[in-house]
């Protein structure tokens, strides 16, 4: 609909008639028409600035020349891009630029990829036309000590792309300019070290630099653009699914650096610190390189054959002796769709059990369950690209600028476009600090807050009656349930200003359009599913769903947690969210797979651990997961897993869980294999092999096939493509997606039922997946463990920008370690003062389950009485503290609330 509103303009350029969208610049329109105009300071993501003056054109009826990057096309405009005059001016400008550039192409890392070099060649500009006045190259600057980014002013063409990117897109405002005239150079405010600045290490400055002035420090000398091969793949960190190019030096069989191309979906060339820099783990000497078998309590290297046989033997023994509840398979949201598909197939056909799960249970299972109950589908309703056009953002229990930085960029863009931002979060996150309304509520009180918001909306008649009447059921019971839920009471319980709740309710209801975003602040509670259902209630009540830029948007935590769920790597569902209890489904799969499907109910990862402790579960095949580190109450997890008869771990590192294993299988990481990931917006995207796995490590899908075969259920595939073909033929919502289409079109969003279907941008357009939406009656209840005299504070845990989950992939990167070297606990300055704790002090954090030491980060980021910790540090593992209390529906743990105390470390 919006597309129709964009009008077309016809104008002439170099005697060619060209059509462009109104508002387009001459440069963009020319580029789109295949007319190349040189430019160094322009980027489609940034506001035009007209600095380099290379893109000058002549416009009929106007004096002199105009910069095509700053001028919008007008109907009938006659533009001449390539004339004697523009040629001469460009050549002169290039000679100017060469004169202030240290022309050091022989040793420059960007030789062959430098735009100044390319244009100078094209225009035959001479580096000796003018005396060279480049700034000295041996001067220390703000980047001198940085592990990631290096800036060389002597190669800088002062296009300011880096500075503009840093402030306009990343909004980090770390880079600025200093000096005037020819002394202008890029620096940080007051020239402080980059690492001490507000730099978020997104590397956008490096990626956007047209010359070699900004470069990746670790990549220096590792290969020039012509030496490197770019392999397009999907990032393996969070659920955003950024498209990036692994720059591989084939001679070294090594990833040298990571870049991304402007225009790719969903990240448009933008990356975060993890995507850009945290790839050192791929080549880490700590990678597992050989299969290991435990013998007499010690691990020893073994051949693949030996290890496969040992693993299969242990699993088969448990299966045969204890039945479907004696064996379990933990699949991996870190691995590809194809591998998850194989794992659940292996579990069901070779393991003969529905005991298969993956880490969705740890994070977004309440989303899948809650949204499926309300809408019929558990996925994010809208696309990442729609975020920038949301008018009222309601972000609750989410910190996208750190946990999902590219989604964060979308929200930043929305803010720049004038969106109103409501944040409900106990913590002052980046977005909360910039929100129009920040409801800094007590952790665990989301439901009473949402109920009060809805009560206020109904009381004031702000709900969308038509939508409710036509598209949702169970309204009366729902309304009755919250009719007595006053804003005042909620304000009291949440400990926030009642007016903020009212205002938030009004803004959300009236937003045009409004959209809800949340992550684990909503799900990781004992009432996680109810929280999700209540957010669905809110969206349906206001009709803020089923349209462009409006819906309920959980942002998935792991790169392929969406895919792992889609693939049926969970007890209740087969691929494509088809229920095995359904006879039609059942027979379809039994026919395809050539066997009988199990019918035990199966459990979740939390069940597996509990059942192991109880002696019911005997053998576990753990693949690409580290439950010892990621599950709550580590002491208990260790004890319970210790009860297993047999544990197989398949991983890229010797994880804490692997240390308990009987057989360890070394796997290839994402850069070493082919396949697909599905991102948080349901977009299936390719993963491509860039380098060889280390040592004897192999792709997971190959290992899974071998294990299956050894267990008596052969699976044979030449390539993951074949696996995809099989699974997409069985999952109707993926049926239209093929490797050929992914190659040709990039990612595709399911539902995509047929080969000619374009994919689905947003869900529930005219009808909910389940037909009518369903209102749930949600009653507020407190978290499982509340503060008391002994443990007077509330501890929440979460993810930071620089590190990822258990940290073994991010921490090998020097720049990451330099930025965030140790575990920390955020504490309010009032509490810190009371306890005699200063910023940076080592403190002891203790709960009923354990105690660890971390550095105190004293500020006002958390509420008084609250603590917040990441969980990335093996040496100070926060999950020793967290509470193993679970959501009553999905068994997701309450990582966000437990009672704790803190004191200075002795």
């Amino acid at each position, binding site marked *: 609909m919006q597309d129709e509103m964009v009008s077309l303009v016809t104008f002439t350029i170099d005697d060619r008639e060209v059509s462009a969208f109104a508002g387009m610049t001459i440069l963009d329109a020319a580029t789109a028409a295949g007319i190349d105009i040189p430019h160094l300071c322009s980027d489609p993501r940034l506001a035009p600035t007209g600095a380099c003056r290379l893109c000058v054109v002549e416009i009929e009826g106007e004096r002199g020349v105009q910069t095509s990057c700053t001028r919008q096309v007008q109907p009938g405009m006659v533009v001449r891009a390539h004339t004697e005059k523009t040629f001469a001016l460009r050549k002169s*400008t290039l000679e100017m630029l060469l004169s202030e550039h240290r022309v050091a192409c022989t040793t420059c890392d960007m030789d062959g990829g430098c735009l100044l070099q390319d244009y100078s060649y094209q225009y035959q500009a001479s580096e000796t036309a003018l005396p060279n*006045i480049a700034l000295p190259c041996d001067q220390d600057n703000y980047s001198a000590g940085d592990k990631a980014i290096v800036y060389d002013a002597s190669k800088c063409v002062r296009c300011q792309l880096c500075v503009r990117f840093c402030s306009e897109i990343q909004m980090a405002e770390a880079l600025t*300019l200093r000096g*005037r*005239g*020819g*002394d*202008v150079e890029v620096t940080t405010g007051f020239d402080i070290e980059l690492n001490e600045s507000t730099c978020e290490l997104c590397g956008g400055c490096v990626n956007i630099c047209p010359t070699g002035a900004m470069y990746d420090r670790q990549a220096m000398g590792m290969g020039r653009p012509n030496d490197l091969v770019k392999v397009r793949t999907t990032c393996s960190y969070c659920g955003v699914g950024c498209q990036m190019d692994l720059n591989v030096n084939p001679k070294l069989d090594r990833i040298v650096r990571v870049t991304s191309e402007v225009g790719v979906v969903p990240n448009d060339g933008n990356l975060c610190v993890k995507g850009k820099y945290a790839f050192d783990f791929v080549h880490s000497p700590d990678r597992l390189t050989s299969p290991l078998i435990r013998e007499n309590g010690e691990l020893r290297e073994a051949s693949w054959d030996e290890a496969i046989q040992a693993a299969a033997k242990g699993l088969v023994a448990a299966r045969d002796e204890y039945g479907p509840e004696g064996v379990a398979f933990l699949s991996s949201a870190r691995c590809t769709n194809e591998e998850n598909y194989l794992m659940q197939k292996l579990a069901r056909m070779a393991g003969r059990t529905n005991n298969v799960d993956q880490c969705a249970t740890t994070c977004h299972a309440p989303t899948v369950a809650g949204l499926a109950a309300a809408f019929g589908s558990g996925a994010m309703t809208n696309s990442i690209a729609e975020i920038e056009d949301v008018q009222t953002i309601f972000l609750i229990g989410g910190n996208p600028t750190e946990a999902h930085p590219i989604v964060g960029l979308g929200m930043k863009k929305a803010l720049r476009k004038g969106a109103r931002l409501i944040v409900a979060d106990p913590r002052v996150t980046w977005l909360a600090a910039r929100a129009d309304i920040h409801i800094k509520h007590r952790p665990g009180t989301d439901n009473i807050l949402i109920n009060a918001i809805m009560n206020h909306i109904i009381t004031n008649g702000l709900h969308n009656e038509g939508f409710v009447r036509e598209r949702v059921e169970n309204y009366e019971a729902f309304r009755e349930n919250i009719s007595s839920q006053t804003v005042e009471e909620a304000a009291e319980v949440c400990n926030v200003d009642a007016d903020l709740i009212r205002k938030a309710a009004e803004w959300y209801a009236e937003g045009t359009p409004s959209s809800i975003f949340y992550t684990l602040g909503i799900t990781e509670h004992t009432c996680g599913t109810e929280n999700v259902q209540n957010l669905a209630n809110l969206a349906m009540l206001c009709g803020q769903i089923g349209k462009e830029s409006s819906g309920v948007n959980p942002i998935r935590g792991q790169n392929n947690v969406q895919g792992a769920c889609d693939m049926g790597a969970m007890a209740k569902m087969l691929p494509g969210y088809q229920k095995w209890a359904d006879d039609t489904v059942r027979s379809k799969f039994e026919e395809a797979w050539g066997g009988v499907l199990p019918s035990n109910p199966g459990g979740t990862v939390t069940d597996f651990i509990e059942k192991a402790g109880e002696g019911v579960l005997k053998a576990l095949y753990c693949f690409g997961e580290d439950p010892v580190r990621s599950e709550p109450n580590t002491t208990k997890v260790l004890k319970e897993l210790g009860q297993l008869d047999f544990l197989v771990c398949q991983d890229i590192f010797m994880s804490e869980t692997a240390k308990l294993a009987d057989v360890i299988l070394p796997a290839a990481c994402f850069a070493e294999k082919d396949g697909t990931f599905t991102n948080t917006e349901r977009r299936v995207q390719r993963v491509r092999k860039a380098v060889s796995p280390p040592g004897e490590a192999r792709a997971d899908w190959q290992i899974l096939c071998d294990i299956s075969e050894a267990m008596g259920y052969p699976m044979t595939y030449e390539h993951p493509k074949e696996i995809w073909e099989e699974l997409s033929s069985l999952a109707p919502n993926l049926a239209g997606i093929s490797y050929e289409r992914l190659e040709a079109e990039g990612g595709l969003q399911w539902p995509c039922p047929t080969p000619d279907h374009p994919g689905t941008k947003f869900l529930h357009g005219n009808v909910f997946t389940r037909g009518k939406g369903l209102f749930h009656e949600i009653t507020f209840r407190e978290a499982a463990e509340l503060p008391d005299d002994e443990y007077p504070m509330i501890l929440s845990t979460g993810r930071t920008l620089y590190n990822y989950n258990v940290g073994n992939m991010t921490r090998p990167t020097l720049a990451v370690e330099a930025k965030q070297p140790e575990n920390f606990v955020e504490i309010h300055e009032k509490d810190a003062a009371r306890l005699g704790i200063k910023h940076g002090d080592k403190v002891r954090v203790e709960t009923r389950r354990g105690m660890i030491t971390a550095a105190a980060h004293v500020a006002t980021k958390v509420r008084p009485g609250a603590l917040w910790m990441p969980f990335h540090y093996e040496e100070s593992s926060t999950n020793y503290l967290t509470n193993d209390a679970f959501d009553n529906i999905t068994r997701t743990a309450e990582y966000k609330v437990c009672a704790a105390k803190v004191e200075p470390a002795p």
Partner: protein
Amino acid sequence: MNTQVMTKVADPEELAALQTRLQEEGVGGGSRIGVCATGCRAMGAQALAQEFRDQLAVQGLDDDVSVVETGCHGQCARAPLVLVEPQGYLYGKLKAGDVADVIEKTIRNGEPVERLCEKVDGVAVPAMADIPFYKAQRKEVFRDCGKVDPKHIEDAIVRGTYQAVAKALTEMTPEEVISEVTDSGLRGRGGAGFPAGVKWNICRNVAGDEKFLVCNADEGDPGAFMDRALLEGVPHQVLEGMIIAAYAIGASRAFVYVRAEYPIAVEHATMAIEQARALGLLGQDILGSGFDLDIEVRMGAGAFICGEETALIASLEGQRGMPRPRPPYPAQAGYLGKPTTINNVETLSNVGSIILGGEGSYSAIGTEGSKGTKVFALAGKVVNTGLVEVPMGATLREIVFDVGGGVQGGLPFKAAQMGGPSGGCLPSEYLDLPLDYDSVKQTGAIMGSGGLIVMDEETCMVDIARFFTEFVKDESCGKCSPCRIGTRHMFDILQRITDGEGQAGDIDRLVELGEFVKEGSLCGLGQTAANPTLSTIRYFRDEYEAHINDGACPARACKQLIKVWIDPNKCVGCRVCLDVCPTEAIAGGKKLIHVIDQDLCTQCAECYEVCPPKLDAIVKLTGKEASDFESLPAPVLYTEWRQKVGAAAGQPGEAEGQ
């Protein structure tokens, strides 16, 4: 000062009544000693004012005579200046010791203190109105500057300031105001000369929920200080223009963007805004018209580029002051992306009288295409440096000779640099050109903000180009390549030429670079940065050629190209030069002909300056003469030398021991 607590004036009648009341109270009249406490502050004016107050108090005259710290009187060459009213005597170069005389003779007896007066042909001219410097001017914008106390709004009101606001806001529609200003022919005094009314009209007609007016007081041209003087001396006149302009375009917020290096302007503007607000001339419903406006002062950090409109907007927004591409023009997307009009201080200072006097009286002054008066900051080798205001169309000769009193030291006039670093040089052939926007532009210079630097035969035009190019090179914001890099290369070449290292082809290179910078640059700074170079090449190409081809600086100004030599036939060994030489390069003694050791000499020419004119023994040599000259090997008695060379050498002077 008879300052009362004033209540808000609710409508034009109350404003008129207030003016009448103040007149009746004698505000602004009576016996007054007006000490310029702005520009003259640097010459001790404030201490001088205090001295007047102290002595008046001692003599019991403090109730009858008021001492007022005023704005600039204009004739800065005679700073500090004091205007004594009602006599109208303008005294210059006062010292504390002169105060008693002024009180005794002028205050008590009404007689002038002749030694403090301007002299014309040796005769004292006490009355300001009779001084040629003032007689040759036409003060319109500056009519009240130096007369009113800028810190008291009463002084402004009593003289009728804000009457134009009353008229515009209550008797005229914004459209009528715009058409009045358009018809008056007022053009922007910031430099480009864009018609002010047209500018307002564009902004008025752009759709927008919020519009802004900015008074551009980021005066940065070297030597120009008329905007500073107006803000310091008649801030209410500026505010008056701003209120009318804001009303015309439909702005309810306005800014005075002034550089932090102008602390007095900042202080006076801030004070004036507070006073106007207290009186209801700013704020809600001004004079009952329903029009709301508030003004705030924003300080710039002193980057020359911030005078450029789009850079100024960036700075106002808290960004680094760098120009933005146009379109969109500030009238379409300015401050915070909203329609914004930016007018220069002098432009706005004209508005009040245009509204009051009607279109006819304003446009009666000036030329066909340029109406009204123009203020020039007269500097350089001219007798009366200072601020002068003349009708558009006045000739350079009138300004330099009639107002300016001619070239210092009586040397021939060579050229005038107009328009600051963006301007160009007008040679003597243009002395009789009537100056207005269009005629000046045709010469390759620009009117600019009104900087006018007079140069005599001892000014090297290559060096002038070098000086201004250095300025723009340093003040280039560094954003666009042609300006940032091109000005640097131009400067390097000019520096080389003035260092005596010019090369064949340098002039062509300069022209080529200059044209490139002009054509390729983003903003006005870059687009005009080459003007000083191009215009001096145009009019004084021979000087460039002399530098490059002959190693000669015809003006004998470029140190690397001159030798300072003592003519043995003229030197009498008076030791005056010997004493001032900072490097002790001059050997000699009493009655010994002095000799300059060329190895030690730095060509500072201090000796040249002090050599008694009747001897005129020190000569600056350049080119061939500099390489060929012969110096005495050692000092000799001048009498012996005279005998040796004979009477042909001329008569020895009698300057011994002077």
